[in-house]
């Protein structure tokens, strides 16, 4: 069984959204974009904890930005093969194993009275009304929200854990246990009498009994006393508290982080037991599992959830650590556009997956962070990253406020990132060097940087005028002498660079270091360079760019404000613009 698609219309943030799911799906998006509402939509149809009353529509459930008097939630399941589901709701499953469930809420515009109806069927066109969500016994969703009250959860779950374990004993174990229980009972009785023999205990109860005596004749023969809570061995055991020990020494159960981990471990343990039993098929939904956890722990948790639970899971998160543990084709990014929330590319898609396969290795955390941004500024390497972060500060572009991420592609290439970011509908801006490369086996070169950008342009943009221009002039971008580039080519190159800016593709004059030298910062830069022995300059600049840049910025970052109107700042300003317009 797999929940493959969800369609929400007119419900809370969602005017009309389609979201596709994979086996382990991750839902990301800024606060208030509607992640919890998306989960709630699924819960309406599948969560056993929501009663019929709970799912009655409220005025606040109707999409507010347009007059709406109806909302609907449609879930599609595929590959239903499990006996328990087929037996219960098989009338609505077709040969392919497809099943649709739908919830429609309506409101009468005059009377404002609201009601809902439920449907099931094997296709969107063949839905039939059903009276109840009776299938939840065999097909449901288990939900953990953000507020995880560990102590009450433990109280409930402890009983279940104990009972499950009791059931799984064999006869020998049971016999042994029964014997031990008798011993425990005897011991408890002893403790009881000892307790009541403590002088202060017996005195206090004597006092109480005397007073009661005065009140009621029926009290004769009865005695109030303290007990260990042990009158019944089973109650005693049931009340045993879950404690934490370190090398036999008791500790109070940990802080929030540990509590979170214990909570999730308990919860998962219970559910993996159930996974083995074919009487029920559940999908799991966890909101922000990373709460209170240190980054390594977050990754560990993500790995745990993803591998231990065999069933389908849906997780909402704000954590790049967790995101980096998931396959990128499982990322669902929700974003807002014109007051409605939609899922980029309708959710999980192969496009993203294929893009990462090009990576050749698992995604690391840094790119993962960029998935949470509203705009991503792609730069060549660490020195650019350092530079632009410093520049942003001084020219008053608050990167965090506007959710702008600066990401260096560092040898991996821009295309992989542009693919993923485009699939996630995250706008990007590129700044690349204007490098000239030698054509192999020849003495001539080409404008590699510009060509790089042109390739990206052609993959992502359609503009007939620009295409014409490219066709006409691309010849001039290569086949010229490297040592002495003819003016003709330089001029064409400059034209290209100018035009590419429109598409958020920024080509440096040469490269960052050279551009800095040739900018208004020239004097300061030279001042800095003067402090470095000449032989070292070239060395350092070429081989330890980042360290070089770092040291420079340490001292001179406040001077960067001069560059506000320089071309160097253009890509950053473009990011700012894009961020503002969304």
């Amino acid at each position, binding site marked *: 069984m797999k929940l493959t698609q969800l369609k929400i219309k007119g419900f809370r943030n969602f005017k009309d959204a389609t979201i596709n799911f994979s086996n382990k799906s991750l839902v990301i998006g800024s606060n208030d974009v509607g992640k919890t509402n998306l989960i709630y939509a699924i819960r309406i149809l599948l969560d056993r904890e929501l009663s019929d009353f709970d799912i009655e529509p409220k005025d606040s459930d109707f999409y507010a930005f347009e007059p709406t008097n109806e909302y609907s939630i449609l879930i599609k399941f595929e590959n239903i*093969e*499990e*006996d*328990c*589901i*087929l*037996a*219960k709701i*098989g*009338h*609505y*499953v*077709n*040969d392919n194993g497809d099943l649709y469930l739908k919830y429609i809420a309506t409101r009468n515009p005059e009377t404002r009275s609201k009601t809902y109806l439920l449907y099931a069927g*094997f296709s969107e*066109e*063949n839905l039939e009304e059903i009276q109840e969500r009776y299938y939840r*016994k*065999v097909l449901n969703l288990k939900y953990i929200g953000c507020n995880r009250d560990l102590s009450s959860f433990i109280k409930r779950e402890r009983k279940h854990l104990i009972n499950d374990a009791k059931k799984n004993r064999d006869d020998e174990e049971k016999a042994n246990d029964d014997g031990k229980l008798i011993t425990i009972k005897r011991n408890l009785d002893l403790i009881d009498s000892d307790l009541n023999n403590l002088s202060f205990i017996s005195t206090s109860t004597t006092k109480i009994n005397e007073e009661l005596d005065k009140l009621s004749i029926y009290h004769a023969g009865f005695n109030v006393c303290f007990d260990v809570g042990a009158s019944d061995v089973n109650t005693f055991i049931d009340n045993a508290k879950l404690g934490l020990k370190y090398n036999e020494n008791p500790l109070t159960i940990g802080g929030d982080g540990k509590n979170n981990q214990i909570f999730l471990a308990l919860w998962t343990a219970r559910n993996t037991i159930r996974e083995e039993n*074919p*009487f029920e098929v559940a999908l799991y939904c966890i909101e922000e599992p990373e709460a209170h956890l240190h980054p390594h722990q977050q990754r560990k948790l993500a790995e745990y959830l993803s591998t231990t639970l065999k069933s389908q899971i849906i997780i909402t998160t704000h954590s790049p650590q967790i995101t980096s543990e998931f396959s990128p084709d499982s990322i669902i990014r929700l974003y807002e556009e014109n007051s409605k929330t939609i899922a980029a590319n309708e959710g999980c898609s192969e496009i993203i997956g294929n893009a990462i396969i090009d990576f050749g290795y698992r995604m690391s955390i840094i790119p993962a962070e960029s998935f949470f941004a509203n705009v991503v500024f792609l730069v060549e390497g660490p020195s650019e990253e350092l530079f632009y972060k410093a520049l942003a500060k001084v020219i008053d572009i608050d990167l965090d406020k506007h959710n702008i991420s600066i990401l260096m592609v560092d040898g991996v290439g821009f295309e992989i990132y542009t693919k993923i970011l485009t699939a996630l509908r995250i706008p990007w801006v590129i700044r690349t060097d204007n490098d000239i490369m030698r054509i192999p086996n020849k003495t001539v070169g080409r404008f590699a940087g510009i060509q790089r950008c042109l390739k990206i342009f052609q993959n992502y943009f359609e503009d007939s005028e620009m295409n014409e221009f490219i066709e006409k002039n691309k010849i001039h971008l290569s086949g010229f002498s490297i040592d002495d580039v003819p003016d003709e080519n330089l001029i064409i190159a400059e034209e290209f660079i100018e035009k590419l800016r429109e598409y958020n593709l920024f080509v440096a004059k040469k490269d960052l270091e050279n551009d800095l030298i040739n900018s208004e910062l020239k004097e300061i830069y030279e001042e800095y360079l003067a402090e470095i022995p000449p032989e070292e300059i070239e060395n350092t600049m070429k081989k330890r760019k980042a360290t070089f840049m770092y040291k420079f910025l340490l001292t001179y970052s406040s001077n960067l404000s001069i560059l506000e109107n320089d071309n160097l700042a253009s890509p950053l300003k473009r990011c700012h613009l894009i961020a503002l317009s969304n």
Partner: protein
Amino acid sequence: MLKIEILSNKYQIKKIEPTDQQIAIIAEEKNCVVIACPGSGKTFVLSQKIRRILPELPEYKGIIAISYTNKASDELKKCLKDGLNKKGSFFGTMDSFYISEIIRPFGKQIFKKANFEIQVVKVKDLSKTDQKSFERVFQDYHTDKLNLQQKQFFESCFLKGQIILNSFERENVLGNVDTVGIIANYIFDNSYACRRYLKAKYSHIMIDEYQDSGQEQHNLFIKLKNLGIISIAVGDARQSIFAFAGKNPKFLLSLPKEGSFIVYPLDINHRSHPSIVTYSLKLLKEEIDLPVFDEIRVFEKCVTGRESDIGVWLNDAIPYYCSKFNVEKYNEVAILTKSNRTGSFINENLDLDHKFFINTNLDTNTSLWALVFTKLLEYLFDANKTKFYVIKDFLDTDKNENKTRKIFGFIDILKEQINDIEHNFDLIVNSFILVSSEIFPQGKNTKAIDNLKEVLSSKELLNSYKPAQFNEIQIMTIHKSKGLEFDIVFHLDLYEWILPRREKDENGDYIFDDQDLNLHFVGVTRAKNCCVLCWSTRRTNYLDEIKQGNKSEFLSIKRLSLLRMVSEI
């Protein structure tokens, strides 16, 4: 030994120890066919079997328990009602199973979506044009191989929201077309979703009264078995009273040949001596493994001469056997024949006190109304019979109190009227009709009414509905003996050409009538203490010609010869 408790009535718990046979059936885990005799505790066995299966199933699974009528399935459910969790089970008739579990849910996946709510519609309630198309399209059909027109007919009905039910009380050529069964089989064959659903939901299927199964039900049963659902068919080949409806014990009898069914007889016919029970079952099925008894109570006798000579012989044979087996009253002795003709020969030649029950046309009429008429006549002339006797086989009196009261009212009137048949003739016939109409409103059968009139008009025929006196030996046809039992039975008419009857077809081959095996079986099982199988060297045929009398093929079956002895007298 397995002890099982049942509630026999609300206020009494009786401990019943099931017999070895019953235990074997209850414990059987694979596909099986249970051939049950009347009085063998069939419903008890079925309900115990269900009780054994249900607790082991997960909550979402269940069994399919099919009974022939709603009344019977309610009885089965009642047996289970004490809090037993039925889980996902289905209790009902085959028609209701077809409709609710196959046609309604999966019809719309096979046919296009109906724009109307699906309703079950009887053929006779269709428009005249639709009825005519139905008759035209289904003149000739092969189950499981529907032609295009037939498929289109069903599809167009479905789109109009109609599932056609052909009730079997229609008396025309197409009364036998089980439309609901045909569509259900078609949908089952073509919908993977349907098959997968049934397999996921149901672990077992039990069909009762399998001897009355038609082709379509049988086909579906085998298909469900092939899906892996454990299949149990329960039936009694000898009880097929619905032959006119195109139902045929042949399907029951074909199950053992399928190979994957284990055959269980359920036959504690407490009435009969074991050697007689063994003989009767071996007659039907050679593979049945049954103990052989030292004392054999089945005898054979060949009388030299004709039927009348048998009558003469009987004058000595009857006292001999009566003293041999301590039978004191002559009405415990029966002489069973196939035809009236033989019966009348015996009637003329037997000197001992006897009563000849002439087989009337009403006796051989197997329609529903004829059955009711017969029961009424028996009631009217036997002070020991009650009004319940008349209707208990047809109607659940608990569920139909009003109807029952109404019927009893008619019967009371009839009881008055019958005192003067001559003057009340038409009123009497009308009363009979009123009772039958209440029980089987759709079953009006003019032939039965004619047969009834025939009986009412003849003192001799009427006489055959009156019970014998204690000193009267009873002479009757096997047909008429159904449901009765006697200490000693003389089974006559065991000649070639007679029992089993045979005819030559156009190729010159012999064709036999299947029902004759059943008839012989019924004859044998009427005997409690002793059964004597008789024939003579000459016989009289239907043209009153004297022919050579050769012993019946039934008596030449090898495996049976060891189970009987030659009569000493």
